[in-house]
């Protein structure tokens, strides 16, 4: 696969006394958005955390641009170009929006900072007006925006989004969909975990279904893809 950015091979991972991934294989190509589906506890977040380095896999390979990054700690994975927007967002609640964003780019040269910030404020004009606001005081949707913007400050090769619409009001779910569409248009490679299947199929190019620790189903998202069939493959 010439255009493969992220290659996951026979990935096994879990926690003491609890094996979760039993040999997961998939590929994410440059510039595409792949959505990872599955029931609760099927290992979607574990897969993202294994790629980001928060979970140490027990077997398998994770190749980013052909380089094996399996078992690297999170800051190494970040340096290699894997940036995650986690489910809990994990922002710095008592710092301002801009401080959060700056920390997102702390591994970039200082000289790049103004340009990076300007780019993010252009993409997220809401944040531009609130750069001095403490993140703690913002709504869930706004915080999600800060989280995505902070991740973009790190100039990721691949962006991992864990439940970007989780717990948000419908208005913000639309907003997130628009953001992801914009990112895709700009050529950002994404691996997304999403419970909202309708949204997932709307924003993704391809889908994967995790079940019993393995990829049970995979395919392209086309107009013909039936939501119902996918739901069945996830839960039955």
């Amino acid at each position, binding site marked *: 696969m010439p255009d493969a950015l992220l290659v996951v091979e026979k990935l096994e991972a879990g926690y003491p006394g609890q094996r979760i991934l039993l040999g997961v294989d998939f590929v994410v190509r440059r510039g595409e958005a792949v959505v990872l589906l599955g029931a609760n506890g099927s290992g979607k977040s574990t897969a993202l955390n294994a790629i980001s380095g928060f979970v140490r896999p027990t077997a398998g390979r994770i190749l980013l641009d052909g380089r094996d990054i399996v078992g690297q700690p999170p*800051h190494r994975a*970040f340096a290699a170009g894997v940036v995650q927007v986690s489910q809990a967002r994990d922002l710095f609640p008592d710092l301002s929006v801009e401080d959060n964003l700056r920390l997102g780019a*702390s591994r970039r040269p200082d000289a790049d900072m103004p340009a990076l910030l300007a780019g993010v404020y252009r993409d997220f004009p809401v944040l531009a007006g609130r750069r001095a606001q403490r993140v703690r005081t913002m709504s869930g949707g706004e915080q999600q925006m800060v989280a995505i913007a902070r991740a973009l400050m*790190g100039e990721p090769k691949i962006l991992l989004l864990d439940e970007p619409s989780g717990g948000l009001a419908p208005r913000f779910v639309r907003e997130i969909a628009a953001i992801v569409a914009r990112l895709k248009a700009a050529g950002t490679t994404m691996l997304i975990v999403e419970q909202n299947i309708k949204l997932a199929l709307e924003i993704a190019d391809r889908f994967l279904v995790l079940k019993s620790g393995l990829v049970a189903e995979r395919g392209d998202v086309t107009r013909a893809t039936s939501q119902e069939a996918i739901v069945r493959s996830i839960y039955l």
Partner: protein
Amino acid sequence: MLAQLLVSGFAQGCLYALVALAMTVVYRATTVVNFGHGDLVMAGAFCVYVLVVLAGADFFLSAALAVVLLFALGWAIQAGLIRPILAGPHLSLAMMAIAVGYALRGGARVLWGREVLPFPKVFPQGIIKLGPVILSPSDLIVAGVVAATLAVLAFVFLATPVGKTAQAVFQSPRGAALVGIDVGAFHRTMWGIGAAMAALGGILIAPITLLYPDMAASTLIRGFAAMTLGGFGSLPGAVLGGLLLGVGELLVGAYVSTKLIDITAYLIIILVLLLRPSGLLGRPAVVRV
């Protein structure tokens, strides 16, 4: 007498400030309160003793080496003992810090427990008279070292990215890892720095208290009092709190009763927490509950 008390209290308060500063650095960077800090102070002083008296090294070289060794010790304590239980309850961390300190004290006692150890005399002896006020050279040295330490810390935390990194790691360790910060290395380094500052404290305190395994037992609670008074987690607060405690102890001792010197720290802790929990310079929001 008042002038003398103020000056001597200031000198004594500098030592408390140094202890409080070191604990504040570790707390600010790692959210862990090192209940074993007093024993690191002792360990630093014993390091110098071993190097100077037993190995015959030069004092300043030994002092520098002790600071480096304690940095390594703090680093190793974090890496080997704190990190594996970091996900557990805070109480386990407190217990671990106490147990490590207890082990250091027990170890020192095994090695030197029944000997009396004079600390190498390196500070100039003698007396400096400023009008009615009497000072010893060590008073000035202690004040100078504490001022320099504060200046370095202020620079590092205010003028370099370390300050923001510390805040990030403090507020969300996972968030910090998500933006590419090596949280583990940061924790280890900060524990190292805290322990290195403990060594500095030990080197300054030992010529005064002289050397024995329990020499720093009472410094811990005084450090806490200084931190509480100044505002938990605030670096300038730690210094201000330490100085006020030092002066306060002497004033209480001289004008009320010497019996009260020992409980000044406890009373300060209780009163401040009841009346103004954020202390003099602290911002309540900085403290995660």
